[in-house]
């Protein structure tokens, strides 16, 4: 039971990070291979705060999320101002993510590559569920707000978006910061669940897994990436009986999704829309 519980908690923690990346990639249309670094910043910031300074857990979590947001400005301002094209941006942020990891490995306060052991395990299932539910709610509200609408407009057509009065740079930057805050929150929860963190937990591999969940779940969807990220965490665990085959199954799942659902599980739609009756009228040709 404890084992299943811990997988559920891990999956939920991962879902929060995926939710953030979904806002940035799925709704704003920018790819990132460095978001695991923001998870790392959140994890280390909050862990250091509770470990060395005995800051109360909720404040440490908030500080971790905020720190990730601030750090995202460092890479976001120069690259997004230069209007780097999506793929170039992904590479720039990849380099940034790796650089952050190297910094974590060489600081004294992070205990370097050996990692930080003995963090209090404050993260429980209710805490994670509250954070996830709040995160989904805020993401939904954000996407319906002035800024969310602007993000989606940029994804659809940046030039048309500008001509609709959208501020390209600011909106993209905001989207990056919001996504980094989600990742930072996820990191804080992760650190206080595992009670041990290490810089290698926040590398390109983790960034890729986050991105894979967003793409496989579907661009422009909140529910799709959440389902995908849950499956991606739970499936390898469920397949532990077939030790050597589980990574094969993981890869196979990705390939199958690419072949049969190139738009992702829920591309540009939500789970809730499946239960709603479609009321759209048929198009009538103009006379």
């Amino acid at each position: 039971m404890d084992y299943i519980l811990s997988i559920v908690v891990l999956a939920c923690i991962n879902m929060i990070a995926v939710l953030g990346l979904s806002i940035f990639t799925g709704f704003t249309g920018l790819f990132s291979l460095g978001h695991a670094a923001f998870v790392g910043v959140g994890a280390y910031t909050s862990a250091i705060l509770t470990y060395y300074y005995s800051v109360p857990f909720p404040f440490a979590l908030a500080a971790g999320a905020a720190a990730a947001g601030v750090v995202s400005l460092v890479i976001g301002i120069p690259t997004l101002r230069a209007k780097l094209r999506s793929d170039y941006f992904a590479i720039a942020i990849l380099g940034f993510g790796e650089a952050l990891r190297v910094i974590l490995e060489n600081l004294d306060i992070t205990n370097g590559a050996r990692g930080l052991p003995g963090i209090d395990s404050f993260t429980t299932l209710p805490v994670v569920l509250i954070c996830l539910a709040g995160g989904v709610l805020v993401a939904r509200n954000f996407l319906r707000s002035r800024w969310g609408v602007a993000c989606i407009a940029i994804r659809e057509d940046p030039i048309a978006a500008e001509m609709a009065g959208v501020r390209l740079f600011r909106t993209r930057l905001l989207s990056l910061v919001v996504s980094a805050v989600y990742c930072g929150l996820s990191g804080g929860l992760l650190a206080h669940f595992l009670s041990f963190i290490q810089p290698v937990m926040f590398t390109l591999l983790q960034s890729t897994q986050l991105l894979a969940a967003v793409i496989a779940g579907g661009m422009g969807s909140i529910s799709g990436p959440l389902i995908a990220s849950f499956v991606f965490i739970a499936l390898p665990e469920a397949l532990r009986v077939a030790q050597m085959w589980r990574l094969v199954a993981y890869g196979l799942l990705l390939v199958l999704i690419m072949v049969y659902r190139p738009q992702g599980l829920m591309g540009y739609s939500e789970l809730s829309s499946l239960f709603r009756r479609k009321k759209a009228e048929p198009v009538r040709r103009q006379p």
Partner: protein
Amino acid sequence: MTTMERPLFSVKGLTKYFDGIRAVDSFSFDVTEGSITGIIGPNGAGKTTVFNIVTGIYRPTCGEVLFRGENISGQRPDRIVRKGIARTFQNIRLFNRRSCLDNVITPLFQRERCGFLGSLLGTPGARKMERDLYERAFGLLKDLGLEKFASMQANTLPYGLQRKLEIARALATDPALLLLDEPAAGMNPEETRSLANLIAEVREKFKVTILLIEHHMDLVMNICSPIVVMNFGTLLARGTPDEVRENPDVVAAYLGNRKERK
């Protein structure tokens, strides 16, 4: 202030080089408030480049774009939109995977002041603003006869309606000057006629000045006055439809040998 004193919009000595190619060459013209001005000219004359400079997508090599007496050349596109210039595109650029309503609400939202935290938390105030904006967006769709398609995804609309939706989206920025880049492209004569009526209606209803690029001569000759003729990036002629039609330079450059048939 009468409109005779100062034009709403004018372009002075506008020049744009793309490397060695001179796309626009010391091009100047005025647009008086309330007019429907047409820009015509052969393909590659630099018409769309002028639009792209005016809306801030390109920076001019030199020259000025004056809007209400202020030089706006080289400013950011979203700033220029806020000052009151909106446009549509030659190759339609809608927010394809969004509904018609969402297409129109995007510019409406950008003109509002919203509290960030309030929006994230979904406060009643933020909700109310959202509802009001959806109502206004629906009203705009209604004005253009698109209300039946409000919930449909933009790229599923037939071509002519997509052009209308683009006009609706441009009007949602509350412009004083509306630039239409080949609004009748790909339309049959019937559709073109109804578009001409629509453009005239839009001018009356929304009190906008219209500047349009078009190749459909019947549309241009019917609703535009004055007409500006461009060729090789320069101003070839300017005048009423009749003056332009009779201008020998224009006939030579653009209308071919129609004059002989007359």
